[in-house]
């Protein structure tokens, strides 16, 4: 195993509320991504996955308080000045936004935008060279007729093509790490598959590490090697995709997998996880998942579980062993 490309240790991010109280959006998150690896980060809206990624980019709003460590190739990113961070953004880490409809400047041609991403970091590159580089990048992301497409504006691109252009921009300076924040959410399913294929190809050919943030387990299953499941600001389970999918050790993971439609099984109704995630201001004591958990016992209400190795995965659950053993009978209690 190579040294980790991105190593997040005990990252916490909190925002100040209106009356000075602190809301912790992310608590004690650990995350490791190796070079050339595709790591999925899965969680519902509000689970802290996007905040974690924005923290890596240093793009959190000025009011956010951050503690812990974020290392890229062994270099600490927390505490870098904005000037130093600019040499990381777009150079070492490329960021792909969720909605390609709004992530492009409507008044610049696609080619100019990509060329700009190059020239920001290498002002010595001439206009003509950066333009040629833009065409090359469009070719890399498999946009047909790149010379012609480079002269067009975003509104002349379809959603999938725009997302390719966004990826081309993120790749402009050959970053080591790509962070893709729900890159396929705004696209329809066939286009999703193409975009995932493209990311996979970039990973293989260019050896970039990719963090894929998503709420879609299906996307992760097809593409990622390892994954982290986040719930209410914490990582609740992580491991290799195959291991987690084969034997989930956390009731939340299990619930997520249970709510996926299975093409080969006839199920009358998909199983939903009862309830909703707690608001950031009112997280329950103990395990944040216990009010929705069929396995919850007294200790879950009192004591927060820490991440520990159980079987093939790392999980934060007091009853991971029982969950893995498949005693799901209590889950049904809440179904009614």
């Amino acid at each position, binding site marked *: 195993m190579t040294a980790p490309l991105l190593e997040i240790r005990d990252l916490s991010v909190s925002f100040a509320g209106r009356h000075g109280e602190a809301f912790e959006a992310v608590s004690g998150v650990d995350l490791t991504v190796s070079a050339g690896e595709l790591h999925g980060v899965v969680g519902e809206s509000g689970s802290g996955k996007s905040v974690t990624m924005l923290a890596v*980019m240093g*793009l959190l709003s000025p009011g956010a308080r951050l503690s812990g460590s974020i290392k890229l190739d062994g270099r600490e990113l927390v505490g870098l000045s904005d000037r130093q961070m*600019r*040499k*990381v*953004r*777009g*150079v070492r880490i*490329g*960021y792909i*936004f*969720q*909605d390609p409809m*709004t*992530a*492009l*400047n*409507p*008044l*610049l041609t696609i080619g100019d935008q990509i060329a*700009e*991403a190059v020239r*920001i*970091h290498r002002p010595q590159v001439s206009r003509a060279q950066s333009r040629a580089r833009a065409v090359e990048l469009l070719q890399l992301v498999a946009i047909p007729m790149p010379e012609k497409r480079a002269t067009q504006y975003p509104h002349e691109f379809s959603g999938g093509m725009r997302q390719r252009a*966004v990826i081309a*921009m*993120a790749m*402009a300076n050959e970053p080591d790490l790509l962070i893709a924040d729900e890159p396929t959410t705004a696209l329809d399913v066939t286009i999703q598959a193409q975009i995932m294929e493209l990311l996979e190809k970039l990973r293989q050919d260019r050896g970039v590490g990719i963090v894929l943030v998503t709420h879609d387990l299906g996307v992760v299953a097809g593409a990622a090697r390892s994954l982290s499941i986040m719930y209410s600001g914490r990582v609740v389970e992580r491991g290799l995709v195959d291991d987690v999918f084969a034997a989930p050790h956390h009731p939340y993971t299990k619930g997520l997998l249970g709510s996926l439609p299975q093409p080969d099984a006839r199920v009358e109704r998909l199983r939903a996880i009862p309830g909703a995630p707690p608001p950031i201001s009112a997280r329950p004591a103990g395990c944040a998942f216990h009010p929705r958990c069929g396995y919850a016992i007294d200790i879950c209400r009192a004591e927060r579980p820490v991440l520990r190795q159980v079987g093939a995965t790392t999980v934060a659950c007091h009853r991971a062993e029982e969950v893995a053993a498949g005693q799901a009978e209590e889950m049904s209690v809440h179904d009614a």
Partner: protein
Amino acid sequence: MSVIAAPKARRRVFLPQWATLPVILGGAILLFWIVVGITIPLWSPYEPTMLAGMRFQPPNAEHWLGTDALGRDVLTRTLYGVRHSLPIAAMVIVCAVLIGCTLGAIAGFVGGIVDSVIMRLVDVTLSFPPILLAMAVTAALGPGLGNAAIAMVIVWWPIYARLMRAQVLSVREREHVEAAVAAGATRPRVLVKHILPLCWSPIIVNATMDFGQVVLLVASLSFIGLGAAPPTPEWGQMISDGALHFYRWWIAAGPGIAILSIVLGFNFLGDGLRDFLDPRSK
């Protein structure tokens, strides 16, 4: 074959999309005044300050709009008047837009204490009735067209500062701006390349409309004796002359119609431009 679609399609062939009736009408009026302003010395039979004939002649074949109290040709003076009104209005608008947009963009982009200081300054300025503030400043600087122009810039820049700040605040939240930051762009670069270019439409529309208002305000200041000094053929000045001779209606009618037409022209143009540039703000 659709019968209903036919007339629409035919119109498109001749006219570009922006060429609506208000734009054409407003543009024609303004074009008329600009051409007159540039070429009038070449073809005018009289000089604006020349004593061209008997005093107080009503409109006749020789003096289409009559003559004033000193026997000067009213039509000539009216047409020459545009050579004062339009350049001053243009200067005022350009300065007000430059100052206002710069400060507004800084306020919106930097925020915090800078924003507060600039916007309070705007609030204070806007809390005066415009004509009153312009009068006060002109009176303090001393009467004259140049000082009136300075006063009007002081009256007008806050409108653009406020408009620009609102635009910047809304555009900066767009995702492509965050994307530019994530790509490593510096703050000035983000502002200049990714925010400002998306802010101009309402500024252009407003500036066009305000053009007419500035012409009116220049005339107002001259009317009360704070702008152009006699014998400058300035519209407000001429109306003020005409007001002394109330029953010789033609002395004030020429400049009055001139002001009316030019304000109307700018409003038409601005209205049409808004439909094209900023369709949502209707």
